[in-house]
């Protein structure tokens, strides 16, 4: 509850900060300090030091994993804002407003990690989405940005409509918005089949797939990611997507039995395999690194969907590690991309000669995305595969997963090759030493988690 209250307050405060001061640097620092307060407030609740609680009539339920995911996502947001703060200033002239928007998004995220009621799910998704439509269109004078925003808004509203319809169906079947255990038939111990319930869950499934951009509901992703300002793409592809996954899992953790176990193990692998296929294969053919990263984020979503496969304890570990590894590496790559004058792969030619440290960092981030050992990405993939195998997936699914992982190596390494092995003059904006130092922080986190992944799990069980 702390996180929801504090993030709302901070959002409101940031809205009025621009009246108090027009110094963007100050606004930025107020935003960062506010975010630290938010993280502390959440940690306070996590450790039971101090928490504001009142009766939500079972609408919200705070458990360890939800609060821990909050902490992780807030921290990633902090790293993201800390690195990209100056870039955000350059877009439009309302710095403080962006921070207000970020806090509202974080409020949506903290609802999505704690809802226990489908209405709260709906409210959380809306609080998360509407600020995102604004961020997408933040570059007002850029037509692509406007197009992306409109597209995202229309598609997003449509999928929210489906979500609501699903929730209405489930309400019709059970008479409640709560995420209860499905009613079991005492004779067979299987859930009572109910057409409205199944239909509602299927609609929810479709809508959630849309939110995490899983194929075949991914069509909005490349255009929106490509059109929005690069700094905001970085945020949408990481923190927002991760929150979507947490909500997705919360809905289907228990409810999937009501869908019928057979239905579940048919539709989920179908979505996973098609997401991996579309994301990876299309990424191979991209000329622009930004668009390639958009498709790669679809491909990575395919891997994260594995966390839905079973409900062993490995799943939570795998998802948390995957979120951290994927988000940090993606934020890192985008932070480098922002500094390029042109987003084509050729523009990276010869970067290793001109900016050896930057090239090394980019390589490390790409390695992590590709899942090469010694980076966090490797263990993220390992835990994921281990989790689905423990949950009883067939070996064929693992083989498909690693075949696509090998495909992903192909397109990530194209950038590495351009940087190291091709001669050329990269077109790079001037980069300060301090900017590089910030990227090293990400790199070190990825390397440490690449050797000791279990550091992340200490808080998962208590």
């Amino acid at each position, binding site marked *: 509850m702390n996180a929801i209250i504090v993030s709302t307050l901070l959002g409101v405060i940031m809205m009025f900060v621009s009246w108090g001061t027009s110094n963007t640097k100050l606004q930025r620092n107020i935003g960062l300090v506010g975010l630290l307060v938010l993280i502390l407030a959440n940690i306070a609740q996590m450790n039971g030091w101090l928490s504001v609680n009142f009766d939500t009539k079972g609408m919200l339920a705070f458990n360890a994993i939800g609060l821990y995911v909050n902490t992780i996502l807030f921290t990633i947001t902090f790293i993201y804002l800390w690195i990209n703060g100056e870039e955000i200033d350059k877009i439009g002239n309302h710095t403080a407003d962006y921070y207000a928007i970020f806090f509202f998004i974080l409020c949506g995220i903290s609802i999505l990690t704690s809802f226990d009621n489908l209405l709260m799910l709906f409210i959380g998704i809306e609080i998360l989405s509407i600020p995102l439509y604004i961020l997408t269109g933040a570059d007002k004078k850029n037509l692509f940005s406007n197009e992306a925003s409109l597209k995202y808004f229309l598609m997003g509203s449509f999928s929210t409509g489906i979500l609501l319809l699903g929730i209405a169906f489930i309400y019709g079947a059970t008479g409640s918005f709560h995420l209860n255990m499905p009613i079991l038939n005492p004779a067979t111990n299987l859930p009572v089949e109910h057409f409205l319930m199944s239909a509602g869950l299927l609609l929810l499934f479709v809508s959630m797939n849309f939110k995490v951009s899983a194929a075949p509901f991914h069509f909005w992703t490349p255009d929106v990611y490509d059109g929005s300002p690069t700094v905001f793409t970085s945020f949408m592809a990481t923190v927002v997507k991760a929150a979507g996954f947490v909500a997705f899992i919360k809905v289907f953790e228990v409810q999937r039995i009501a869908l019928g176990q057979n239905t579940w193990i048919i539709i989920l692998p179908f979505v996973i395999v098609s997401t991996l296929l579309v994301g990876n294969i299309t990424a191979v053919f991209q000329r622009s690194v930004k668009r390639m990263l958009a498709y790669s984020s679809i491909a990575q979503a395919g891997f994260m969907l594995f966390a839905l496969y079973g409900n062993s304890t490995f799943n939570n570990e795998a998802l948390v590690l995957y979120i951290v590894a994927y988000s940090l590496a993606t934020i890192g790559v985008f932070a480098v991309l922002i500094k390029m004058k042109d987003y084509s792969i050729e523009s990276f030619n010869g970067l290793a000669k001109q900016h050896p440290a930057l090239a090394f960092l980019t390589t490390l981030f790409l390695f992590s995305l590709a899942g*090469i050992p010694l980076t966090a990405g490797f263990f993220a993939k390992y835990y994921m*595969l*281990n989790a689905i*195998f423990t949950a009883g997936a067939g*070996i064929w699914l693992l*083989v498909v997963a690693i075949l696509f992982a*090998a495909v992903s190596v192909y397109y990530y*390494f194209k950038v590495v090759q351009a940087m*190291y092995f091709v001669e050329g003059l990269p077109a790079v904006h001037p980069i300060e030493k301090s900017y590089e130092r910030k990227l090293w922080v990400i790199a070190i986190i990825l390397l440490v988690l690449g050797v000791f992944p279990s550091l992340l799990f200490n808080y998962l069980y208590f």
Partner: protein
Amino acid sequence: MLLLSILTIPFIAAIILLFVKHKEKANYIAIGSSVVIMALAFNIAFNGVANFDADWILSLNARFILTADGLAKILILLTAISFPVIFIATSKNELRNRNQFLALMLFTQTGLLGVFLAGDALLFYFFWELALIPVYFLCSIWGGEKRIAITFKFFIYTFLGSLFMLIGIILVYTNTTDHSFLITSFKHANLTHGQQLAAFALFFTAFAIKMPIFPLHTWQPDAYEQSPTAVTMVLSAVMVKMGLYGIIRWLLPLFPAAAASHANFVIVLSLIGVIYASFIAIRQDDVKRLIAYSSIAHIGLMSAALFTNTSIGMQGVLIQLFSHGINVLGLWIVADIIEQQTGTRSMKALGGLAKKQPTLAILLVGFALANIALPLTNAFVGEFLIFNAIFQFNPWMAAFAGVSVVLAAIYTLNMVQKIAYGSVSDATNLMQVPNKSAQFVLMVLLGIVFVTGVYPQVLFNITADTLQQLFVK
């Protein structure tokens, strides 16, 4: 601690090297650290050493455990001898950013030593990949003209192979009784027959690509040809041994039933590769490609012998792992000296080396004889045991494999004839000053060839305990 230090020294030296721009200093650091590692390796091989064991990833129950039994010792010895030899022999070659080159080489060495020492499947996988990454950069930055595409093919091939192995590891791990990656728990995992076959196939793919076994060998000759020679030496002398090591350490003990039922299949594949590679070697004009194909043939023989499941075959392979490394290293160094001084690798353009540089020609002949496995050379002992094992398994296969000895004699002697004898060609005429440091290491290597050829008991002693474990229940 000795085992941990042999891993950390090359790693730290590599990091230091990244900051040493001066060419000569970089050379000294690389050679110095690799000699220290060699001394440690000798100590480990002849005195034995305790395991190193520490917690690593608690939630998975993976441990950082290093063990050195006979199999590990012989390969560590090979790795530790190869690197200083390579550094000294190629110290005069022109390379841009030499310090980075040497640093990546030492990272490779760390990975290789880790692979041979790891006693935990996840750790093994970790080092297995780590050995590959620096090689990717070494070949792509300093390689020949077509380096980028060729190296990428090599990388994707081996990376895919190792991902298959990763699934195999997950499969076995999930079925271990105590959920651990230790080799002993892996051996006692409760696998059904189907699971054992699947795991066998997954592991085997990774090792077969690395060795490589026909028909998965297509990356190798290209990669050897396009890599800078120092890297080719590492690839062919040490890195291919990772595949054979994997079979001896993991595949055969973990899945004995599946290995036995597929022995025929693997041996036939290996032998096809042996004969096929030998015939291609005969047709080569490029010295590097010739040695590459000859290496495929020798590795194929070893993999065939492993699957005969005889102690005599295992003994032969354990010795041959070391001997093949030394021999092929010698051949590469000679080829490199010739290429550096004449600027060509084509045998048509060479000739008359014996008149121009008699010492080098004698060394070449020495290694050529070892490559044919003539008695008194080290390869004879190993190959004799290997043929013996294949004969015990199936005399017809032994007859088929025997053809490769004749073929080896044809291509090797043909090479010696074209390079060393005949009239002095224009290219050979360019070879004015002998490369003293390279010749020195060649003499040392040739010394090892004959000493272990006449008195192989040195190597038998090192590997005795592995043989004991594998065949005396």
